[in-house]
């Protein structure tokens, strides 16, 4: 998952994705989802290439890419922190956890830490109400989280990353 290195690499990837959906405009959202999965975000060159490939104005792609919360125009962190802010989690203290994450990592909701280790995204509901308040990092669930546990939970991810870098 990295930004396209060259213009031609970008064009090739975009063309492959556009072809997968028959260059049909109905599939703009799945195309953008695939491209975001490929590049980690939707940088301008990708959107421009796609607009050209399927023959729609780039403004329309921006309209879609900025409307839906799952798309990002800027690079994301290597780990995604998803905090459930559904009603039950809210009643059980998700707001305090949100404050803890924001102050601990110095990020705003939807933002990415300066070192790009984490992206923090509050979501409406994870549908795991029996576990509330629930926090998810990448694919791992953390149930009945207390604000004080947040630094420890997050440090595991920062730590595995540091260890991985050393072994490289």
């Amino acid at each position, binding site marked *: 998952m990295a930004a396209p290195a060259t213009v031609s690499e970008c064009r090739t990837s975009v063309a492959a994705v556009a072809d997968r959906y028959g260059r049909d*405009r*109905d*599939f*703009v*959202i*799945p195309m*953008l*989802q695939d491209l975001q999965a490929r590049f980690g975000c939707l940088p301008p060159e990708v959107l421009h290439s796609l607009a050209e490939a399927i023959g729609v104005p780039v403004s*329309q792609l921006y*309209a*879609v890419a900025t*409307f*839906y*919360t*799952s*798309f990002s125009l800027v690079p994301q962190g290597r780990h995604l922190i998803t905090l459930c*802010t*559904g*009603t*039950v989690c*809210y*009643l059980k203290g998700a707001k305090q956890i949100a404050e803890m994450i924001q102050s601990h990592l110095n990020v705003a909701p939807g933002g990415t830490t300066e070192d790009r280790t984490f992206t923090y995204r509050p*979501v*409406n*509901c*994870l*549908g*795991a*109400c*029996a*576990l*509330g308040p*629930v926090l998810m990092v990448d694919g791992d*669930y953390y*149930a009945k989280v207390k604000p004080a546990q947040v630094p420890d939970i997050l440090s595991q991810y920062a730590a595995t990353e540091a260890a991985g870098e050393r072994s490289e």
Partner: protein
Amino acid sequence: MSVASEPLTSPSDLVHWREESEQQAETAATTVAVCMGTGCVAKGAEAVFSALESALERLGPDAARIRLKRTGCHGFCERGPIVAIQPGDVFYQGVGEADVAEIVSETLQEGRVVERLLYEDPASGDRLSRVRDIPFYGKQMRVVLQLNGVIDPTSIEDYIKAGGYESLAKVLTGMTPDQVIEQVDIAGLRGRGGGGFPTARKWRSCREAHGDVRYVICNGDEGDPGAFMDRSIMEGNPHGIIEGMIIGAYAIGAGQGFIYVRNEYPLAVQRLQQALSDARRCGLLGDNILGSGFSFDVRIHRGGGAFVCGESTALMASLEGRPGEPRAKYVHTVEVGFHSAPTVLNNVETWANVPLIIARGGEWFASIGTPRSKGTKVFSLVGKVRNTGLVEVPMGMTLREIVYDIGGGLSDGKALKAVQTGGPSGGCIPASLLDTPVDFDALQDLGSIMGSGGLIVMDEDTCMVNVARYFLEFLQHESCGKCTACREGTAQMLHILTRICAGEGREGDVELLLDLCDVLDDAALCALGSTASSPVRSTITYFREEYDEHIQLRHCPAHQCPGLFRYEIVAQNCKGCGLCAKECPAGAIAGERKKPHVIDQAKCAGCGACFEVCPASAVTKV
């Protein structure tokens, strides 16, 4: 034997295959079902499954008669991970990896029950071994969820063995589209997504609408916070939904269908994708279904993460690759829907009911429920309730029965204040109206709605003004901004509610909120906006005194709004340990060691650190 070898080319093929596999099923005498619902997985169900898998491998030839399978949600999320063993109806809860060896040696080999893994009835202290004895399940009526937790959702064979796709076969062999709609009409099925619109009327309008191409859509964009019914059905019994859609498509004459799944539900997407490809492989989907000449296929669309896409016209815009903005519905989507063609959009649970109605007949379905709300409804029972989970009850059961008999009452022994139904479009029903039957119309009369099925229990510690503020914050954030009433109305209501919760409410704020509610009711373009008034109006109707106390006395009676209550130390409980004084960031607590401490209210910042650390619970909120 697997159905995979060749596609089924006639309805009788399907029946033959099922009968043959039933005879063969004798060999696997015992099934061990591990719940793989989100709740159980998050509590470690995968590890339990792997441990069982390797334990069975070690068992050698003995394991041949045991079938281990992953199933969808059993509903009792509070007690996960759950392992159910048949025959014997043994229900183990709170199972850990460490328990696996004993389950294998005792239950699977010796046929003995492991007492300590059984559910303990909180009232009697008895260990209950059978599912039906557990009060959480005893009062439920599991119709839509019947196969959840029984079948392996990744196995089309399991679904067919349980009688799956036989409703489709029945429809294709002997029913006209009109007869199908007739049965749904007799059943009295109403839309489970929230609106409660009669399904048969929707289908008939679409069938009669002018056009050559027609579509069916399954709305799986379950966005209400605190609701996970549709997710559990999509993950636990995907073929039930697909079968319903094929039958619906046959009834209205559609050739293409879509399932719109919420972005946050990757497992549901995976399960549905597999189910679709298995159904195609078996000749149950695609060209010439079961040799009948009827062709229909389904495509999955992952949502982009926008709550408003749960609204039908916004969802269709999203399917067409556009931003999910709704349009005015002077012309209904059954006439002008997806790509301007007649389209039927139904919710996941609605579709899942269809094969059941066809199998057992509309009259059977109509015999369940109340005069105007038929069948059952799945709810996610959540919040401050002891047994959080997924429940299915006949329409007409009272909220009290659901919360106390099935839910086991409130957790932590607190008093119930309200039950919130219908998500952000719904309202709060106070404890005094708990004997209200759950029925589309009864809930609407109280200023709430059935909604898609979130039932959130709130206790005395919940501030109702803050609840209204929470929902408005949600709605304001999710408003697409197309119409002024919703864009500005939700923002202004949120602004006022935030002020009230911060102790800056003014006389007349409540009246102003009610005025804004009227504007939204009348002028908003879609249901997101027009129902945004419900959380505000219902809390004002039933909890007006809480609003007044915030505004006039600058006090939050639930002790939830920061700054609108005080922390005090109860002298007789204080042991003088000094922990609170050490923790207090404002230096507001003083006292001699082993003597009662005191909070200096002038210095207190209201952070609650003392409340959290006090080992003697001597710090109280007043």
